[in-house]
């Protein structure tokens, strides 16, 4: 049975909203795994850390497996210390989002997030031999690569990014600060104004990308509802739902209903469109097409 996992909240939500979001996920969402923690910007972390123990406890009591996500880009001394400390504190698994983590936890069981470059079976086997028990693969991988990797490491739970704006790049420069004519050091946390990220349009007014602090994401929302059969046949055992500013409990229920055959993919997608309106869906990466595109199963070339 394909698992559902909830990725870390990427955006700078108000801490109480963040906490209440997770309480509701614990109580109502049919997800098996929840990855928590501030993975984008270490400046934000103190605000969430305060609520983290209560969130973890509530999720675990509800039977969810909790993963603790590391930062995607580790550079400051403080961040290095926090990353090393993560390895010490974890009751649950660390989700490695930067190879820096491996220095402190290599050999011990851990998860790997969609920000670590695992593009082939040799890299996957390397990580598996050093303790990776679940791997969320890079979203830009085509299905053929996903299947080859899954076949090479059948003992590892292979996960694909199935819903949410797709993380495309990470930087040391803060683009939120930059558009507000500020810099990362004096950012005033302007990223907290954009609960779903800040949309970037082309000069011809086409929606293109999303800025979230130091992270750049797609404008389009990944939606792999129509690809679930292919993913399952390809050995994928878990689907990651990345939180957007919408009813993620309903999103999780929709994916669960389609996976369990209670709803077909078309109806599921219409349902998602009602939950998260006005954002185009995309699954191009999986089909070797430009990431922003949406390829319907009958159009897909085997």
């Amino acid at each position: 049975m394909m698992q559902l996992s909830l990725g870390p909240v990427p955006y700078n939500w108000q801490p109480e909203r963040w906490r209440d979001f997770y309480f509701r996920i614990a109580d109502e969402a049919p997800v098996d795994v929840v990855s928590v923690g501030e993975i984008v910007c270490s400046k934000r972390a103190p605000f969430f850390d305060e609520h983290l123990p209560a969130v973890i406890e509530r999720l675990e009591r509800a039977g969810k497996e909790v993963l603790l996500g590391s930062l995607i880009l580790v550079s400051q001394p403080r961040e290095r210390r926090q990353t090393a400390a993560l390895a010490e504190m974890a009751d649950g698994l660390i989700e490695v989002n930067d190879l820096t983590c491996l220095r402190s936890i290599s050999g011990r069981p851990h998860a790997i997030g969609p920000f670590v470059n695992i593009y082939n079976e040799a890299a996957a086997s390397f990580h598996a031999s050093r303790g990776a028990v679940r791997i969320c693969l890079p979203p830009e991988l085509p299905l053929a690569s996903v299947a080859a990797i899954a076949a090479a490491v059948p003992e590892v739970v292979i996960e694909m990014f199935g819903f949410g704006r797709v993380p495309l790049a990470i930087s040391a420069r803060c683009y939120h600060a930059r558009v507000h004519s500020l810099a990362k050091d004096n950012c005033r946390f302007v990223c907290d104004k954009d609960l779903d990220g800040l949309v970037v349009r082309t000069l011809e007014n086409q929606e293109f990308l999303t800025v979230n602090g130091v992270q750049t994401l797609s404008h389009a929302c990944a939606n792999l509802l129509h690809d679930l059969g292919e993913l399952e046949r390809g050995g994928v055992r878990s689907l990651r739902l990345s939180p957007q500013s919408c009813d993620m409990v309903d999103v999780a229920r929709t994916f669960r209903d389609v996976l369990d055959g209670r709803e077909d993919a078309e109806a599921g997608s219409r349902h998602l469109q009602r939950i998260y309106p006005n954002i185009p869906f995309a699954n191009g990466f999986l089909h070797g097409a430009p990431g922003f595109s949406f390829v319907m199963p009958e159009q897909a070339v085997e």
Partner: protein
Amino acid sequence: MELICPAGTPSALRTAIEAGADAIYCGFNDETNARNFPGLNFSRRELSEAIAFAHRRGVKILVAINTFPRAAAVELWQRAVDDAVNARADALILADIGLMDYAARHHPGQRLHVSVQAAAANPDAIAYYVETFGARRVVLPRVLSVPEIAAIAREVACETEVFVFGGLCVMAEGRCSLSSYATAKSPNMQGVCSPASHVAYATTAQGASSRLGGFTINQFAPDEPAGYPTLCKGRFSTELGTGYIFEDPVSLDATALLSALRDAGVSALKIEGRQRGRAYVEGVVRHFRKALTVLDSGGEAVVTSLKPFTEGQASTVGAYRKTWR
């Protein structure tokens, strides 16, 4: 400090050597390297000849095999590693962890450099590569300030190499899917970013526009030269206004920071541009050779004009000064 120069062709390689390179980095003419453009790079035989030519002149050759092997085709990259070793490459520049593992196990004596594509941006990540694969040098991502570079150089057991000129990546290198989002071609998988195959220019009422994969990247007035639509160097708008949201179309020139980089303990300076022509290679290499000679004799490098070689006719010191963030 060693001067590491790019060569996309055998003749560019000879030019770079004559202009004063200490080492050349280059790749095979296939998808195993991150400058996989048509007509560029070296066949197996050309590389062997280039290595022999360079060694006779006391110059080193570093072979970049720095894309991430495609699943079910890993052998192609492993063959590239074997062939580069057999051709007596002085070092391999690798990014994929599985390929580093292969090289370390099958060619334990071969010098390994960690590619900028491996995004080893702090001493712990670098130490992991050193301890696990015996890496001898790391090419640092272009997102670090000079003080950060100095701190890294003090702490790590391997040599450090930094970019001083050329195209500037503003996102962590090797971890960027912007290009494949728009075009299906990615630096990590196909070894290209913002590929020419997906570029179009159109004439508009206001002048011209450049497009990548159907997305307008920039617009130009009739008398303005139309730049190449590298995705992250485009002009876009948000509800806060219009402009170069990610980075201006400038390139890196760290001439003014050479003595600071030397004081920071950097071992090697890298010039970007394997896809650039011989005039670029000659002009830029000569400039930095001269700058290093001046530095060695106790002077400060003079920032002479490298404008003709810079993107957008303007340059920046990029992330080396912390105000960039």
